[in-house]
């Protein structure tokens, strides 16, 4: 902050390259927004990209180096090269690919069904305040329930096959999705409902033409959390019981003390979860566009 000076400030404070304010009506703000922003933007974007790559390389190179010269114990920390090697072995000789498919499968199934069911449930609360009021605490309890600790009970309820993982992923997502949708329902602009009534609409029409589209951004906003939850559900499900899956692989690697393989599992999961995250972001964009939803 010492380097701060008036002259540059005039250019620099442009809250500028931030995301533009929700409603564009705010002229005073907009006007100081993008002065020469484009050029600077480009430069900064290049700098950011370079920075990211550099930091990434540093992290991995440092890791490799430190484990080689022994500053980090390679037994626990493994090393990028070892991890890559193990991943290759597991991919070609082991079952890594099958495991990934298995885990992704149950995650996606649980995610889709859970989100849809939850959304419908949440939307249904619009129909009756009494019904919604009665259900609310049970939703919260379900949400609070530590599904991870339910191991034995889950095995009884859903068995030990693929289905049980999908169910766990479903359970993890359905509640948040319902809570989000309910949040949307609660926030519906009463003026829009009034408008519909003034046009002689029936409740069903108010629901389909106002409540549902209005709540879409809320439902969509739960997607990102849900994909992570669904993945966690699948993995915990695999921790508890499984014949396949990345979760099983990690548990297995732990028991045979193959730290390399643990790291492979960790990385595969990270990559998987990031891929799914991106997928969801694309889905969000697509949905938002299709539904012409303007920032909630």
């Amino acid at each position, binding site marked *: 902050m010492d380097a701060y000076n008036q002259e540059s400030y005039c250019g620099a404070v442009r809250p500028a390259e931030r995301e533009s304010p929700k409603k564009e009506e705010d002229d005073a703000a907009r006007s100081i927004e993008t002065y020469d922003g484009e050029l600077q933007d480009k430069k900064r974007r290049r700098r950011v990209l370079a920075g990211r790559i550099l930091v990434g390389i540093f992290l991995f190179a440092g890791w490799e180096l430190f484990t080689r010269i022994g500053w980090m114990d390679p037994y626990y920390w493994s090393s990028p090269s070892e991890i890559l090697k193990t991943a290759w072995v597991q991919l070609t000789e082991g079952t890594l690919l099958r495991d990934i498919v298995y885990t992704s499968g149950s995650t996606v199934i649980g995610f889709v069904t859970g989100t849809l069911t939850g959304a419908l449930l949440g939307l249904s609360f619009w129909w009756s305040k009494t019904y919604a009021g009665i259900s609310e605490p049970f939703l919260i309890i379900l949400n609070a329930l530590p599904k991870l600790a339910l191991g034995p009970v889950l095995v009884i309820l859903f068995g*030990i096959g693929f289905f049980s993982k999908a169910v766990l992923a479903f359970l993890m997502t359905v509640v948040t999705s319902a809570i989000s949708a309910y949040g949307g329902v609660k926030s519906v602009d009463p003026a829009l409902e009034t408008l519909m009534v003034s046009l002689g609409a029936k409740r069903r029409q108010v629901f389909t033409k106002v409540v549902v589209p209005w709540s879409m951004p809320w439902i969509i906003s739960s997607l990102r959390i849900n994909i992570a939850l669904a993945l966690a559900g699948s993995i915990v499900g695999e921790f508890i019981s499984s014949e396949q899956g990345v979760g099983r692989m990690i548990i297995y690697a732990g028991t*045979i003390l193959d*730290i390399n393989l643990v790291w492979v599992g960790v990385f595969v999961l990270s990559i998987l979860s990031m891929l799914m995250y991106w997928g969801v972001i694309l889905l969000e964009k697509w949905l938002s566009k299709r539904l012409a939803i303007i920032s909630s």
Partner: protein
Amino acid sequence: ALLTGCSPSMQTQGGSTELKKLVIAEPVHLSGYLPLYVAQHEGYFKDQGLDVKVIQATGGTHVTAVVSGDAWGVIGGVDSIALGNKNNSDPITAVCNCVNRANVYLFAKTGMVPKSGSEADLKEFLKGKTIVAGRHGGSPNLLTRYLLINLGLDPEKDVHLIENADASTVVAMLQNGNGDVGNGAEPQICEGISKGIWGEPFYKFTDLGDFSYSVISVKKSTIDKDSETVQKFVSAMKKALKAVQDDHEMAKKVLKQEFPTLSEDEIKASLDRAYADHLWSPDGVISEKAVTTDMDMLLKTGIYSGSYSFQTLVDMQFVNK
């Protein structure tokens, strides 16, 4: 038997439609269960018209899975079966042995060793030590407590037990000084030795002799209604147990297939120790002593109260046929 001509691998899928699908639940994926994997890989099950799938189920759920009917059978200690049979109207019964020794070893940080193997020296050595014992309720933990009690030590007061859920963490804990003594089996032992954290185990629970550490069990109702399948399964297991004893090379090959990321050294160490300590039952028979020792451990550690009977826990009719 539908197929004759035992092909060593599983390429022949010819009569797959007629194979009976069975699921066996295992608490962990362990080299100790090698005979089971051998029967899978070498096609012994298929020869019997069975298609056996092994599913990992942790935290006690391997037994629950059988009770709920999701798994046909379970591989695990007679102790876990006894626990699972409490209040259960359709008890689980052991039908075939697999691991006939308590596959747990105690090791101490390098430089620390009891003066001798005698009970008195052992007691003196263990007193006041911090022991990384594995999660409470698990076999290694219970065996350690059992030993302490037998030595006249109170597990809660005379030593400090650290109860890690993940067996693999023992290496880190002893290395970091979080513990003086640890328990475990292969591949941990070999791992610690090669890293110089500990030396050879100073106490082997395998010395307890016959111990029903891992047996194949199914529901009583399965035995009553479908004894034919049980018989086929046990026959295949017996064949595998014998093959493991006879053909060390084949054992090594299957182990390598099941645990592809294990190094050559680790596999060799595991096998050597297993053969040396007579880990695997040669014939599938569960002796009364094996169950008694196991149950004695449960009773002494206070996990199990009440009585049990060998007859309800074990049914040797298929092995003996």
